[in-house]
């Protein structure tokens, strides 16, 4: 089991490394860095709050079932 897990971890790391973009973020022009930060930042905030939304909805459903 442990061996299988180690192989899986190594395989995942190799795939991630291969898929990783070769762009060095530090070398990008200043404004491009800004645009990337803005786009990723806004997306991140919406994503995390969307997860909070899903969580609350799930809790509401569980609460409704309990009430029934």
């Amino acid at each position, binding site marked *: 089991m442990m061996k299988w897990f180690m192989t899986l971890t190594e395989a995942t790391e190799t795939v991630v490394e291969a898929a990783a973009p070769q762009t060095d973020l530090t070398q990008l022009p200043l404004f491009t860095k800004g645009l990337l930060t803005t786009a990723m930042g*806004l997306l*991140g905030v919406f994503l995390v*709050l969307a997860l909070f939304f899903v969580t*609350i909805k799930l809790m509401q459903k569980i609460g409704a079932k309990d009430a029934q």
Partner: protein
Amino acid sequence: MDILAILKELFAGVISMVSVDGLKTLAMFVIAGVLIYLAIKKDYEPALLLPIGFGAILANLPDAVVLGEDGFLKVLFNAGIANELFPILIFIGVGAMIDFSPLLKDPSMIFFGAAAQFGIFATFLVSLVLIPIVLPATAGDENLILRLASAIGIIGAADGPTTLYVANHFKLVEYMAPISVAAYSYMSLVPVIQPPVIKALTTKKERMIRMNYNEERASKLALILFPIIVTAIAGIIVPMSAPLVGSLMFGNLIRECGVLERLSKTAQNELANLVTILLGITIGGTMVAENFLRLDTLLIMGLGLFAFVFDTAGGVLFAKFLNLFRKEKINPMVGAAGISAFPMSARVIQKLAKEEDPYNFILMQSISANVSGQLGSIVAGGMVITLVTMMLGGA
């Protein structure tokens, strides 16, 4: 030592006032006086502006003994700001004050907490352009420009502790004074800044939209689970936000668990008040003339205002956008409460709604958006720290 030398030594402070530095000191006294005036006379965030104003007076006294190696303001700075302790403690108190019940009843309001962070990123971009132009000394230093733009953008979070946390994380000690003064003074000016922006972007008809609200309180289990789950989600996705989210949610859990009423009251009152006093006077202590009377301060104050305006606009416009698809319309003013500034922004929105229709009650929806803004601003702070650190190559 002759008499003249003794007198010179004795009255060094008085003599220093009759010089260029003396004029700067006087200018800082005037600024401190304005802050104290706003606190006492206008009741604008007195708990913060008064200690900040008094701290500024102390810091600008000749020789500034309070800022010396063992000076108490220096000790407080190292103990509470340099290591980010005060913002964290404040958040425990804030968390204990927040009731997430309205949000748990109407979770769709949570997206306003994200939309109203638009100003942070818009200001960040504008700052990247303006900083090298207005402050030529920074030109070429991309590292400083990015860090400073981040801290200026976060002023738009309308959330003092998060602003301090980000500025401190990026080691912007010499910019701490104008950044924190901008953040706290604009927070206190929410009743002045938000209404004109909202009115410019909405029609009277839109401002009169009524919204239904379910009075039923959320279940106790949900109120207990919410802070724990939120901490886990935010901490896993945006680890940099963990200290702030964690302390906010810890305070909230103390409130909602139902078995720590004494601790909850202490966090809401004694802890929050004590740290507010120390935080205020320590921030005031950073307002030394040579760090404050500079072009940077004007730039930071101007961009801070821009951030507040665009945050408000982002929330309102997002609500109007949602209304294009919704059958049950949202009062777009509620979107403006998505900026943090809890609970002042929600109160301002309710007051505006009442001005248009005395029987319109949208306070609970505004509070939902407002507490979402509290969460959104922390997550935005964490995102900015993470992304900018990546752009700087992990510096």
